[in-house]
């Protein structure tokens, strides 16, 4: 545009001559955008932390044996009673082994699947922990520790000792922190584990495990898969659970259904298992957006107000400009540019404010028993928020400036000049 430089010059002269009002309007935008950045960074940081807590640890698909009663009972198959009313009460599931039938072929099949990042077998057994005169009941999971570390960040939850001790020594155990506290045991100590078949095994504590969830830490421990099978007195094909991690979490539901159709097992996908968790994240995000948008709307009204005042004060200027050959659209442009300049500066300073406060929050210590890997408050620095922030600022100020600018375009210079 040929006149753009001139229009810009007039717009900025107006703004700088009313520098206090301009700054106040820009401050409104700045606080709106700053708060948006802080809210989004903090809220989504928290969401990611909590998601990570669940998602990193939780398998995308858990496979275990079915324990629900048979869907079609024998009497329903019988042709003679097809049209009769069946009176059979207290139907119970039939007795089943805890192990997954054909676990090894299933495991091999999963590992060859391209959607699968990895699959780990687990064998769970119920035990008594015995140290001195005390005993506690609990659960021991036999795991392949290197795969667990690769797929489920298992290492993050070992607060003392070394997870690799499970590979180095067969009778090593990673003891739950709650159990360790109750039995006053530490890394390097010995304890006896009594299996359900009455055989006791001496184990060495190779590390302390803390998930942050008390009910797990008070009962669960981890040993090598082979050790767990030995505790139960079963062979190496005795596997009670398979945990699957996928490359893309979106495939969890589909693949779990496929597995259930092919094998005689129950496959639980993460979305079904953690449905309430998604709702929590969703609501937190919704709250952040609502608060930020409200702040921006307030800032928008501030701009609207200040531009309206500016136009009222600049009636004479508008009349002269129109009388000396500036068209209505030139005037419209002057005021829209003013709104956008306020939006741009307010927005940029808002981003700086938001970023600075985010850094401060990011460095505030946040130490909690429940989250052993977290040292400071979580902040998400996703550039997406900064891009939306500045876009929000420009769109809001544009809208706030547009109505007063339309009014300025319509001002009839004759009325102003006559009116004196």
């Amino acid at each position, binding site marked *: 545009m*040929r*006149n753009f430089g*001139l229009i810009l010059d*007039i717009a900025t*002269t*107006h703004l700088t*001559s009313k520098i206090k009002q301009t700054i106040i309007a820009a401050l409104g935008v700045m606080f709106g955008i700053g708060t948006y950045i802080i809210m989004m960074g903090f809220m989504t940081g928290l969401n990611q932390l909590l998601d990570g807590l669940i998602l990193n640890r939780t398998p995308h698909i858990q496979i275990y044996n079915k324990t629900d009663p048979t869907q079609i009972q024998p009497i329903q198959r019988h042709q003679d009673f097809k049209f009769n009313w069946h009176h059979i009460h207290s139907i119970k599931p039939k007795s089943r082994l805890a192990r997954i039938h054909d676990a090894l072929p299933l495991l091999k099949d999963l590992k060859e699947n391209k959607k699968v990042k990895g699959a780990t077998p687990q064998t769970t057994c119920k035990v008594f922990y015995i140290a001195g005169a005390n005993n506690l009941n609990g659960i021991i999971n036999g795991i392949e520790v290197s795969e667990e570390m690769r797929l489920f960040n298992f290492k993050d939850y070992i607060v003392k000792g070394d997870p690799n001790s499970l590979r180095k020594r067969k009778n090593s155990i990673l003891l739950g922190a709650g159990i360790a506290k109750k039995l006053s045991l530490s890394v390097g100590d010995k304890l006896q584990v009594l299996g359900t078949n009455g055989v006791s095994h001496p184990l060495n504590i190779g590390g302390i495990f803390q998930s942050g969830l008390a009910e797990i830490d008070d009962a669960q421990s981890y040993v090598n898969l082979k050790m767990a099978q030995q505790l139960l007195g079963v062979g190496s094909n005795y596997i009670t659970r398979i945990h699957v991690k996928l490359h893309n979490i979106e495939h969890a539901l589909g693949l779990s259904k496929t597995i259930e159709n092919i094998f005689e097992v129950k496959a639980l996908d993460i979305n079904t298992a953690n449905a309430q968790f998604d709702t929590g994240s969703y609501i937190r995000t919704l709250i952040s957006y609502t608060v930020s948008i409200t702040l921006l709307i307030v800032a928008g009204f501030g701009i609207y107000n200040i531009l309206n005042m500016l136009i009222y004060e600049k009636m*004479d*200027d508008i*009349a*002269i*400009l*129109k*009388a*000396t*050959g*500036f*068209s*209505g*659209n*030139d005037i419209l442009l002057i005021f829209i540019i003013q709104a956008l300049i306020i939006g741009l500066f307010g927005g940029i300073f808002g981003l700086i404010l938001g970023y600075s406060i985010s850094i401060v929050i990011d460095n505030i210590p946040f130490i909690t028993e429940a989250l052993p890997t977290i040292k400071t408050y979580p902040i998400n620095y996703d550039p997406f928020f900064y891009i939306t922030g500045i876009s929000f600022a420009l769109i809001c100020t544009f809208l706030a400036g547009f109505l007063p600018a339309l009014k300025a375009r319509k001002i*009839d*210079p*004759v009325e102003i*000049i*006559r009116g*004196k």
Partner: protein
Amino acid sequence: MSTVLKTININKYFYDPEKFHVLKNISIELKNGEFVSIMGKSGCGKSTLLYILSTMDTQYEGTLILDHENMSLLNNTNLAKIRNEKIGFIFQFHYLLPEFTVLKNVMLPALKLGRQSEEIIKKSAFEKLEMLGVASQANKKAYKISGGQKQRVSIARALINNPKIIMADEPTGNLDSKNADNVFNILRALSLEQKMSLLVVTHDLDFAKKTDRIIKMGDGIIL
């Protein structure tokens, strides 16, 4: 001598508070280089006529021809261009942009026209200010200079695009007699030396008597 401005049967009504026939069949003509004044009592419609002639008021019936072009057919954007290029304005109340420097005020219409580079416009704006004796104020903000100086600056602004015609609404109405004489002499000189066409609305008889021709108005008609 050719005609610079001509109206044919211009009629104008006010509708607020009630319908009022303010201009009745106004047909006037202004030759190139003429210095004409329009006189009449307050409320006779002389200012209203001037705003129509200036193309700022488009709510009228009839034909307005400026520099051989029919203004009645143009839209607002084109009329703005015409005002920028062909008409210079002087108002009773000076009307400078207070936050801009005097020099910038004079330059603005030429910058809008965009025919010359900013350097050349600056130079010619300075020349106009010099001609009107206010060059020393060039870099002051417009709100800092006196009323008489403001009026001279607004004359310089009216001249910057070398318009076909200068229109003035009570240009001396708000000035003391010394400054008023001064402004008249400047206008007179423009007419004589630069063959500028001038149309001035005034109710100052002394002023009007010194112009080439007086158009007298009363109650919406030419007397």
